[in-house]
């Protein structure tokens, strides 16, 4: 991993069109500004990890068709 030292309001360029700016630093929080083309998706890493974790958990649960049928009826009743 490349590690660069940056001060508040200084930036890093990734390629020609992605700019990352340290907008502010307060204690252990860094506020980061990202300028990137529209087709580059920017998300906090926790969100990816959370969805991954949730998928893995969902894939592991045992479900029998009867259970789903009962749940389906419960939902339909509520509606």
């Amino acid at each position, binding site marked *: 991993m490349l590690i660069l030292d940056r001060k508040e309001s200084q930036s890093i360029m990734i390629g020609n069109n992605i700019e990352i700016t340290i907008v502010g630093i307060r204690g252990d929080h860094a506020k980061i500004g990202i300028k990137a083309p*529209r*087709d580059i*998706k920017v*998300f906090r890493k926790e*969100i*990816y990890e*959370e*969805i*991954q*974790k*949730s*998928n*893995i*958990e*969902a*894939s592991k*649960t045992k*479900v*029998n*068709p009867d*259970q*789903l*049928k009962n*749940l*389906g009826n*419960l*939902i*339909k009743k*509520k*509606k």
Partner: protein
Amino acid sequence: MKVMTKAFGEIEVSEKQRISFKEGIFGFEDISSFILIDAEEGSPFYWLQAEHMPEIAFVMINPYMFTEYVLDMEPEDLKELDISDDEDILIFCIVTVADDPSDITVNLLGPVIINRKTHIGKQIISLNEKYQTKHPLFQLGGGDNADS
């Protein structure tokens, strides 16, 4: 065609049920082909079954069956799914099933979007930050909604 499933053993499915996920889904990035199966007629639940891995399958629900879901997605995702007409969009949310119904949760943050015309699917990240991966299924209905 025949597919081995986690829920029903080997079953016959139609080619139309095969959905191609170019990037897989989160945590299962290598699985590019899933089969979409109705849990049963009239049920709000669906199965997303990995075509070549019988043990990998997800229960999904149409979120509109129990909550007023607002789909807020990146224009890039729409492009990747090749969606030109809203009518082509199918939206599902993955359910984590538990024995106690009150422990069952639904992932509203990472919905699975399917283009019903082209059979392309993708799990996206909702831009709506109020959604989480673990909304209780039975709190969402019954008057409450995902805002709380």
